[in-house]
């Protein structure tokens, strides 16, 4: 099973002060697979994701990426390895414009020395608008501040960003929250399309219909442990709902 | 008696003030001579009497043999000094005394020169340079409004100016007080701007040494020396330079080295042979242009 696993998680533990949030989670994620991660509130899904994307460090256990043991000290490491994440809580800077938010940390440069250079602001504006149109969001200008957007618009920007920078592994932590019907469909379509591009996806949602609609395998967590791990064909909504 | 003496010196100034560094030099040199354990305690904020009082209380807890202190307020230190005397500590005032003198509190003696008399004699000396006729427009730069040293020096100057006006009823005498600050650059800018707007100003008195930087501004503007008379307190190299150039006419010199040195000696005598300390005037201390060459060398050494 681990032959073609792109990510192998082994016995992962995470403590927050006074809370044992992950109690030995092991999990293999195969290359090109779309994995659905479900579970009760507080089950530890976001914690697992945060560790995979480098925003948090585990207290025990190991992670292998493409066969090699890795230790992501910060999100940059994970991004460089090829993991792109949409976080549950907005990873946007409210005081900055849409275009700047889209490209934070990955600004297109006109010229640069030692990694610092002049941003290509026209390109940023154009690509930002294009990416937004791709998720069916029609926003005013790319210079509007993210802090002044509605809840769904903000989430839309986060998704547009991730879609724009798609990578080897895409992690989506409840991406459809706050999104309107059309945008939600775009996101589900996007997840399905990842398979064709050979991109691995981890999709977290509380909407079982959505999960069954676009993933290959379903992992359910409860109280920091994996309690179900089956292919979609081998299970049913009722079975999943049962363990939750 | 056995063991070296413990002597503490507290005052109201911070470590970045060159005047007090000179006092410290005298203090340390004297202590070395009598082989005493000495400590000079500065405040964190320039002119902070409350901090000085706190430092005195702390120092007394270490039971020193002598306490030397500046007395910049008439009441604030009375209790503490009384307590020290009760404790058997020799207390000598240095640099500034209670305006009521010995009657003001329990200190044994005073070494230095009061703020108000100093200001007064500065004004008096400066009046010798005043033009023969025409109105007299005087500016007094209060470096730190509300702080004793500055307010009292300013008051001394103004006291003299009042007398001067009374003595010369036929002449028009105007006195303006400015908040000039204690940062050389700011003083230069503020006074510079004022002099620009009021070119008929006769004299500028600083309650510190920051008029040296005003002189620099005037030099920059090609205003000849002497057009505006200037005077202030304390000797440092910049002041001497500007006196040489002729921009500064009169400077009060309290001989800081002496103010640090003498009290230690008096304390030593009191401690060793029970001689009672006596008041020492550290000099009329008015420096004019012709005194500069002699002072330059000493100033560079930090002795004057």
């Amino acid at each position, binding site marked *: 099973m681990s032959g073609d696993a792109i990510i192998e998680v082994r016995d992962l533990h995470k403590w927050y002060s006074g809370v044992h949030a992950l109690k030995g989670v092991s999990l293999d994620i195969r290359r090109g697979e779309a994995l659905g991660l479900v579970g009760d509130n507080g089950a530890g899904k976001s914690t697992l994701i945060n560790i995979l994307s480098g925003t948090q460090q585990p207290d025990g256990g190991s992670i292998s990426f493409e066969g090699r043991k890795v230790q992501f000290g910060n999100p940059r490491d994970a991004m460089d390895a090829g993991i792109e994440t949409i976080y549950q809580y907005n990873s946007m800077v409210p005081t900055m414009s849409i275009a700047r938010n889209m490209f934070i940390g990955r600004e297109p440069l006109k010229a640069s020395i030692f990694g610092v250079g002049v941003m290509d602001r026209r390109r940023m504006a154009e690509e930002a608008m294009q990416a937004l149109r791709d998720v069916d969001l029609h926003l005013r200008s790319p210079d509007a501040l993210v802090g002044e957007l509605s809840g769904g618009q903000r989430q839309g920007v986060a998704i547009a960003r991730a879609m724009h920078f798609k990578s080897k592994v895409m992690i989506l932590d409840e991406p459809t929250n706050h999104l309107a019907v059309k945008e939600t469909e775009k996101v589900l379509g996007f997840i399905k399309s990842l398979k064709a591009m050979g991109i691995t996806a981890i999709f977290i949602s509380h909407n079982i219909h959505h999960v069954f609609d676009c993933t290959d395998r379903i992992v359910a967590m409860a109280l920091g442990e994996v309690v179900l791990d089956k292919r979609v064909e081998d299970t049913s909504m009722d079975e999943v709902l049962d363990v939750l | 008696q056995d063991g070296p003496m413990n002597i503490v010196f507290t005052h109201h100034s911070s470590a970045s003030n060159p005047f007090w560094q000179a006092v410290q030099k005298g203090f340390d040199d004297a202590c070395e001579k009598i082989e005493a354990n000495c*400590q000079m305690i500065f405040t964190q904020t320039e002119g902070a009497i409350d901090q000085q009082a706190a430092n005195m209380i702390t120092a007394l807890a270490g039971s020193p043999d002598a306490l030397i202190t500046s007395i910049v307020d008439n009441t604030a*230190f009375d209790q503490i000094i009384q307590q020290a005397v009760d404790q058997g500590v020799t207390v000598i005032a240095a640099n500034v005394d209670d305006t009521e003198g010995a009657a003001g509190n329990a200190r044994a003696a005073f070494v230095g020169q009061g703020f108000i008399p100093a200001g007064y004699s500065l004004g008096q000396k400066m009046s010798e340079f005043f033009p023969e006729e025409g109105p007299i427009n005087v500016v007094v730069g209060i470096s730190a409004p509300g702080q004793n040293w500055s307010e009292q020096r300013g008051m001394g100057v103004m006291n003299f100016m009042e007398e001067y006006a009374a003595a010369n009823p036929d002449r028009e005498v105007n006195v303006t007080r400015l908040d000039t600050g204690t940062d050389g650059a700011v003083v230069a800018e503020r006074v510079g701007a004022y002099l620009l707007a009021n070119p008929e100003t006769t004299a500028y008195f600083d309650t510190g040494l920051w008029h040296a930087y005003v002189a620099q501004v005037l030099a920059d503007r090609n205003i000849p020396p002497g057009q505006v008379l200037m005077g202030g307190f304390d000797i440092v190299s910049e002041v001497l330079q500007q006196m040489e150039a002729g921009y500064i006419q009169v400077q009060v010199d309290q001989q800081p080295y002496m103010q640090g040195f003498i009290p230690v000696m008096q304390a030593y005598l009191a401690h060793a042979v029970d001689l009672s300390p006596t008041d020492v005037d550290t000099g009329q201390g008015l420096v004019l242009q012709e005194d500069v060459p002699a002072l330059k060398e000493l100033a560079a050494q930090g002795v004057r």
Partner: protein
Amino acid sequence: MRRLLKIYMEKPELAGIVFLLVLGTIFQIQSGGVFLNAQNVQGILGLLPEMALVAIGVTLLMICGEFDLSVGSVFALCPMVMGVLLADGVSFWLAFPAGLGAALLVGLTNGIITIRFNIPSFITTLGMLFVARSATVVISGGFPPMIPQGAMPRDAFVAFVGPGDMFRMSFLWFLAVAILVSLLLGRTNFGNWVRATGGFLPAAQSMGIPTARVKIACFMLCSLLAGFAGTIQVMRLGAPLPSIGEGLELQAVAAAVIGGTALTGGIGTILGGIIGAVLIRVIDNGLVLSRVDADWFKMALGGLTIFAVIVNAWLRKKARAMKVETNT
């Protein structure tokens, strides 16, 4: 056991106490035993209330999400108003409230300007720092007024009391205020509102808390305590100097932060602010007794202050990393 230790260590103000003990030991040795002798402890305790009262007010205001840089000036203004009135022969029982009234007025002005015009309190109170100081100098004419002997009931505020004359009355006043404000913050609904207002203003507003009034109340309380502290100092020194309290604003904020108060509001305790104030006083006192050379004094002061906060942060981090389930 570990669990208790963990809970204990996570409290920032308690981490401060640990550091205080360590520091005390070092100073005791360094000063050859003078640091903890009765006279010195008496000295520390005698001065402490003045700064700690200011720190209490500033801590409360910072928890509420605002700043007050004008405390140092109010510290001088309030007793000056009282002193000028006393010198004019007004009775203490009119002059004292008048002084406190002036402090309250400054706080009210700070609050109203900050909230009405929606500008940062940093600026309002920085401006007020100058305005109040200037007002102090103006009403005093630059010199401390002569307060008639016995015009101030020093017995009630600064006389020594307790075994071995260990405390001043001001210490008792301080204790009373500290307990009252701690209870106000920790046990009353007003305290809840203060914390919510500073913690996340939009949420506090949307839950119907009158945030403007809460903030103004905190501004006023902060000024009042600063003024009261200044009055105590003046009673102790005997004369209302127009220059007292300069630089106090940064010290008070530092005390609050050392005690674990967040600059962004919402987090902190009164006890923490007090411990911060104690630390600052102890460091200052200990360094004087250790005979640190004057030129190096500020270096030691600055270094130790930073170090205190580092130790604090480190202890808390260690505590958080302890793997004990505390609340399941």
